[in-house]
């Protein structure tokens, strides 16, 4: 048997190649972002340069064919619906992930996990259809018209809960078994182990899941168009019909031309800005204790 010394240099060459390959891939992935933001900017530029960014925030109404371009109500509706959905979906999703791993007997946990994976893949149009025929009339019975912010929040919750559940689950799965064993050895109950040991340890993955889910909620289109009523107004009550930024694009893009079309791209750009703000906020939050 010989241990070659020559291989040492070829190994580092291989490592260099690896770095080059993955760095190229990373560059490629980022290039998609640049391309998309560039595309949005290019398409919305006619509106931004002639109408000006301020009017999109401060115009009193959204009537693009009559020269009014206020996006503020839709922006607030998008935010309200996404925040509401994240607030509802986070406990549901995390609880589902915990349930699968620590409470359910294996076959049930397995089934539950599969339903989550499936639910995450049900097309938004199907969920929207279900919302339109099941949820909206239900709400409408108490508070017409039914198509409302609340319906939007509920539908978004159904759509993003699986994302949070799957990501939290993956984070819990990848924790070393020793964590749980150590806690049990200390005489901690299952609940205390979860609350004080496992969940804090998995917090990175859970947070990533919530962020992805929030982003998906903000970006969701088809289902929202069907259930939230699409009236351009600030969300003052849960039962008000509201229009979200994405719905605005979906509803009007098919018929828009000229500055109307460009201003719809401004909605897209605004959504991007919203997600950037969200991600930046998440940095802040995680930055405070990421070295902890």
């Amino acid at each position: 048997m010989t241990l070659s010394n020559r291989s040492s240099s070829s190994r580092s060459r291989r490592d260099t190649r690896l770095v080059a390959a993955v760095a190229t891939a990373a560059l490629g992935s980022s290039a998609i972002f640049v391309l998309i933001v560039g595309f949005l900017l290019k398409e919305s530029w006619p509106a931004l340069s002639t109408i000006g960014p301020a009017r999109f925030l401060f115009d009193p109404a959204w009537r693009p064919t009559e020269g009014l371009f206020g996006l503020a109500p839709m922006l607030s509706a998008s935010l309200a619906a996404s925040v509401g959905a994240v607030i509802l979906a986070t406990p549901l999703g995390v609880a589902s992930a915990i349930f699968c791993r620590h409470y359910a007997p294996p076959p049930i946990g397995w089934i539950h996990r599969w339903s989550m994976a499936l639910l995450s893949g049900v097309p938004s149009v199907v969920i929207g259809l279900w919302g339109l025929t099941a949820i909206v009339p239900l709400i409408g019975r108490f508070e017409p018209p039914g198509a409302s912010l609340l319906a939007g929040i509920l539908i978004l919750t159904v759509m993003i809960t699986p994302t949070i559940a799957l990501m939290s689950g993956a984070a819990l799965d990848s924790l070393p078994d020793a964590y749980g064993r150590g806690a049990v050895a200390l005489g901690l109950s299952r609940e205390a182990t979860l609350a004080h040991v496992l969940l804090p340890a998995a917090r990175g993955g859970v947070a990533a899941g919530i962020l992805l889910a929030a982003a998906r909620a903000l970006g969701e289109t088809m289902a929202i168009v069907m259930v939230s009523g699409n009236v351009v107004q600030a969300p003052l009550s849960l039962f008000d019909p509201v229009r979200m930024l994405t719905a605005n694009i979906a509803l009007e893009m098919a018929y828009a031309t000229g500055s109307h079309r460009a201003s719809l791209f401004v909605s897209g750009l605004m959504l991007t800005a919203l997600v950037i703000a969200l991600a930046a906020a998440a940095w802040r939050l995680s930055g405070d204790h990421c070295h902890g």
Partner: protein
Amino acid sequence: MSVSWFRGKDRCALASIGRICAVYIAFFSSSLGHAADNRLVLTGSSTVAPLAAEIGKRFEEQNPSIRVDVQSGGSSRGVADARSGLADLGMASRAPNADETDLQFFTIARDGVGIIVNTNNSVRSLTDEQIVAIYTGKIADWSKAGGAAGRITVVNKAEGRSTLELFLHYFKLKGGDVKAHVIIGENQQAIKTVAGNPGAIGYVSIGSAEYEAGHGAHIRLLPMSGVAASVENVRSGSFPLSRPLNLVSKGAPGAVARRFIDFARSRSVHDIVESQFFVPVAP
């Protein structure tokens, strides 16, 4: 273990690089591969698309060398693609605008637009004035329009939709005057929304409404100006509200496109037009 792991790893790296290369090669080869096809591309209105696709299938059967690709995406896309040459023909579910003189419009069918309410609503007819009052928010309860008490949910179409423009034009309203409670995009969404809400009122394509009402959906078509909303009345021209479904070309259409237009306007596709619940144009 037959494969040494060195080669195994390199092979995997190679495979992924290879896959990426394949995609790039595909990019370039594709730009060469297009022109050869005898292909007719139609893009535009999602209302016209199912009809055009069915007509296209029959056209393909009769002309095996030609392929008709129908793409959906909205009337404005149809007009834009026809103008830019991306599509051989655009599809638009509206009449030409004043600034579209560079385009030729060919009507292949008509579509009536009627008012619908929920079947639980006791109102059997509404005057034009009542409809205007409901849509502008002056009447907010069915009891003021001859029905049982209950809040009215006004279902309106999204800005830019051709049915909205038709509706506004007929009732001499401006977009800003309408006080809607629910705004919807596609036709079927309006039907489903009204079907699910006892207090709702909306306006939709008459053909689909007739079909859905006949198949158990909880909607009822209301007559307009005393004329019953039916495909029959749209065909005879007595129903006041209808829109053309058009094929659009930039300038004169090419030979294949011309043949397709003629085919789509001919009597031999009337059964298709009717099966999509539209009204054929008289030849």
